[in-house]
């Protein structure tokens, strides 16, 4: 037996409420983040990821308060992302009780932020989030391009090289979201997941598209992901984390079963 594959429920939080969009548009309200985090903790989640999807400046204080409350109630690792732009933002979230922060747009704008953050706080708490989409121009070979600002801005940056660079700069983990699959429930983009996971020696969390428990299994077995992240299948009670872990275990995947 060895290191367990992780199941990470994701809380997309807008102005203090958990929501989940479909292709980043369309919103259903799924509750109070502290209560949702406590529920996942009691179901045996391996970690919790909290993404502040509005991240407008006036909402920052709300986010810090929610992170503080979660960390006082939930004794598993907590990753916070969304609107992290500076060493100061990272410090604020770590002080509020986050164990890791996830950096997305700011890493594209200033890759050295990742390097500075890893040096200052340690690689173990620096997650680089990548939103990628398969694109091809006229007569071009298709490639995975990185998008920022919740999928609204194309960057022209190729995802596999970028992730390798982020690992060299000291990222401790990659949170990989397929923009093509996010919210679709069609399963992970396995080709992308495998390419990224094999390109780096740091853990990769697969995200975007989970609709069934078999999708989680595929992400790990075929996509080679070290952890799988999902939101809607857990938020609306289709499955509990415990059910997901039991299923993975029955498929021969090592998981942490909290008795």
């Amino acid at each position, binding site marked *: 037996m*060895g290191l367990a594959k992780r199941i990470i429920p994701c809380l997309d939080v807008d102005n203090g409420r958990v929501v989940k969009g479909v292709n980043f548009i369309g919103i259903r309200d799924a509750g109070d983040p502290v209560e949702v985090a406590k529920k996942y903790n009691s179901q045996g989640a*391996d970690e919790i990821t909290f993404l502040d999807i509005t991240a407008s400046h006036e909402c920052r204080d709300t986010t810090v308060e929610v992170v503080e409350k979660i960390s006082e109630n939930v*004794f598993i690792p907590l990753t916070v992302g969304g609107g992290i732009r500076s060493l100061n933002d990272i410090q604020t979230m770590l002080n509020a009780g986050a*164990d890791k922060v996830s950096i997305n747009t700011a890493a594209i704008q200033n890759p050295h932020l990742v390097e500075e953050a890893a040096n*200052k706080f*340690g690689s173990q708490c620096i997650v680089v989030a990548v939103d990628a989409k398969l694109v091809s121009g006229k007569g071009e070979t298709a490639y995975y391009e990185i998008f920022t600002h919740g999928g609204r801005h194309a960057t022209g940056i190729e995802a596999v090289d970028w992730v390798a660079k982020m690992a060299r700069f000291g990222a401790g983990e990659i949170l990989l979201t397929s923009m093509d699959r996010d919210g679709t429930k069609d399963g992970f983009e396995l080709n992308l997941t495998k390419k990224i996971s094999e390109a780096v020696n*740091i*853990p990769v969390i697969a995200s975007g598209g989970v609709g069934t428990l078999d999708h989680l299994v595929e992400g790990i077995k075929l996509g080679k992901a070290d952890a799988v992240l999902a939101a809607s299948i857990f938020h609306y009670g289709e499955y509990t984390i415990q059910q997901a872990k039991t299923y993975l275990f029955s498929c021969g995947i090592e998981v942490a079963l909290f008795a």
Partner: protein
Amino acid sequence: MTSVVAVIDYGMGNLHSVASALRHVGASEVFVTNDKDQICSADRIVFPGVGAIRDCMGEIKRLECDDPLNEVIFNLRLPVLAICVGMQALMTRSEENEGVDCLNIIEGKVKRFPDDLKGLGSDILKVPHMGWNEVIQTVPHPLWDGIPDRTRFYFVHSYWVRTQDRLQVVGGVDYGVKFDAAIAKDNLFAVQFHPEKSHEMGLRFLKNFLAWEGT
């Protein structure tokens, strides 16, 4: 029984979580502090740490945290729990940051996982070692009370400890290399994992620490 815990604060990392977890399992008071008097007047001590070892050692020295730490370990003989980089800082020397001398409170070394780490079946093992792994309890100890052997705890680290005196090892993990997950020396207990992030069994471990008299 009251239990006042001092969490030694040398400015590195998230001390909020460990303080919350200690309160959650019944500590009557938790001080997050680097004040020598406050540290020495507590019932028991937690010595945490995250980040790079050179920065940690630099801050420990600058804030003179090594002085009260030695006092509580060797003179007051209080129960002391070191966590993660706190454990590594107790060793003789770490190979992180091109080599850093540590506190040498326990004789041992801190090494990096190799980049080409492989598991059984030649699977690539990623570094950092991040997530839930099984701790093999090599020796019974009051801090393992109520915790089954091979319980999974949460780890996140790229460097690992090996003590010189193998009789000090009370818990081990195999992640491509076999490393020391828990070591005990008299009133001192040190773990590589994060009990404050290890779900119910992590809380149980911390509860055991609050009940432990250091012998």
